[in-house]
């Protein structure tokens, strides 16, 4: 077996009905893996951009890009080599935790407190996926009540 590598692929598609399911059906139908998937329209255009984090051998990744390209609404498939990649996480803490420490941790990971209510505070960080992992393990001792992570977005350098 060839080694499976983590890869980030951007797909530019025509922004039309059911295009997302075409992409995800392709992955499930051919047994490819999706680690994360982020989609949003590209401003002032008729396209959307998908950022797909996947893994597979060189052969599998090649097939993924070729098969994606075969889909009729797909304009471009970019297999990133040298990229800037960011992911976001929102975390909810009890208000009783040490807010100063949490705030300091957040700023170390390019984030801050974004909402405070009577019971909880919510923080946000946006950083490289690996660093988001570190952040999430570092905040464990502050008893996070809920964590939500976005998928990655990426741009070629």
């Amino acid at each position: 077996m060839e080694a499976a590598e983590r890869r980030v692929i951007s797909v530019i598609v025509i922004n039309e009905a059911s295009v997302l399911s075409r992409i995800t059906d392709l992955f499930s139908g051919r047994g490819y893996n999706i680690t994360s998937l982020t989609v949003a329209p590209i401003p002032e255009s008729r396209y959307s951009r998908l950022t797909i984090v996947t893994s597979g051998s060189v052969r599998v990744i090649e097939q993924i890009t070729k098969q994606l390209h075969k889909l009729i609404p797909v304009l471009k498939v970019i297999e990133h080599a040298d990229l800037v990649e960011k992911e976001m996480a929102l975390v909810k803490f009890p208000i009783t935790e040490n807010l100063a420490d949490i705030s300091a941790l957040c700023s170390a990971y390019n984030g801050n407190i974004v909402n405070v209510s009577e019971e909880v505070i919510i923080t946000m960080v946006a950083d490289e996926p690996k660093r988001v992992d570190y952040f999430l393990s570092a905040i464990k001792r502050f008893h996070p009540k809920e964590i939500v992570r976005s998928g990655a977005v990426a741009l070629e350098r």
Partner: protein
Amino acid sequence: MQISGAQMVIEALIAEEVDTIFGYPGGAIMNVYDEIYKQNSFKHILTRHEQAAVHAAEGYSKASGKVGVAMITSGPGFTNAVTGLADAYMDSVPLVVISGQVPMSLIGTDAFQEIDAVGISRSCTKHNYLVTDAADLPRVLKEAFYIARTGRPGPVHVDIPKDVTAQIAKFDYSKEVDIETYKPTTKGNTRQIKKAVDAIKNAKRPLFYLGGGIINSNASEEVRKLVKNTGIPAVETFMARGTLKYDDPLLISMLGMHGSYAANMAMSETDLVIGLGARFDDRVTGKLSEFAKGAKIIHVDIDPASISKLVNADFPIVGDIKHVVKSMLDIAKTTIDKERYTPWLDTIANFNKLHPLSFKEDSEDLKPQWVIKRVGETLGDNANISTDVGQHQMWTAQFYPFSRPRQFISSGGLGTMGFGFPAAVGVKAADPKRISVNFTGDGSILMNIQELMTAVEQKLPVINIILNNNYLGMVRQWQTLFYNKRHSETDLSMQPDFVKLAEAFGGVGYRVSTKEEFDAALKDAIEKNVVAFIDVKVHRLENVMPMVPSGGSLFNMMLEYKEK
């Protein structure tokens, strides 16, 4: 011009010069059928099942090279057609399948005869559309035909809600298709082609590996020329049968699981595979790591995703076979020194002599291979041959003398039992002058037997030759070889009277068990020119040989197996 969505469908079919469509009406597609009733431009053939409508459209397309069209209703009409779509997708058959859908206002309410048709067809079509506005219909239909026939061909599904077929909008079919995201490459890269030709010139034991893409791109003539000019031997895939004439001295026969010993040995000993429109299917390659081991690989295919999918190509060329082979012919003008292949051709001749494709007439019973050879001797080039799926299909590919592309019509990729008879009806509609013969098995024929009615009603005589061994033969063969003869649920001794069945539908039936009876029945069926069943009692335990056991290496063929 302002017309209804239903009228647009008709106008589009006329503009695409469609002369025959296959279909089955129902609630959601009735507006379109009302317009079909009013027109005289094309013929509608009413099949007796939606699956058969799509298979008939496939047969029509495979025989004629044109885009096949099928028309069906929503819900069960559509789900019945899915097998046909999947079959066409696997074999790259250009089709446009139009289905009715419940009105827009009812979509998503679990309405009567509602199903998410485009959701279902997504994985078994080249592309699909749900049309939500009649104003989109001209563009969508035009794109559908364009996408179906260009690039790697395939089925396109257009789902139209009932209210959209009633909606009035502007119809303008004159605009050229321009899909900015879909631009298939047709011309191969010149430098890459030149490199490939150099590799051919330097090879000692080159071998053409001819695939179904050649037939799809109508490139057989160019390929025949290339083979002749280079003097390089060739093997054909199942899908490519008929690319070279059966008696071409350079044709080694079919390769793969039930290919000839010589073809598989040639593939194992070649130093350069010249793959043209073939996709290295697992039924061809056997064990991948042993496939053409010491060889460099040239792979020409219109579908970039087919190249290096399974076997790494040293010379990948993306393009239409017809274009690429023409360029190869141009570049290779300085004739290749054919003398250098003499030892290679001798080796192959030796393989052929050692284990030719053959069968033994060692029993009183008729051998199925004899029947196929006999039809070949009798009808040869005058017949189009379709098959169902199973042992009879492999024997046909092995023993029928195919003279031309599009003569052999069969379900390759999906292996759909029940394909043959409706496909043969479509073939007859496309090519009425030639006799349409369907080789089938006693298992397969029952899967779309209702098409007897279609064939009789439409006066599309198909001669169905049932190679009847009272078994689901191919599965039984595997059970014998790999499951220690545990023949689980493959005994089909209980079967209908096929002669009476044919007669009940208004056709003609024959039951035969000797050579003389078979000859007489075939002669009579041809003369009468009617829908016929020839129920041939064949040797029950005949196996398809030689065989590469699933996952085995091509050079390790099982040459004979006598079952008692």
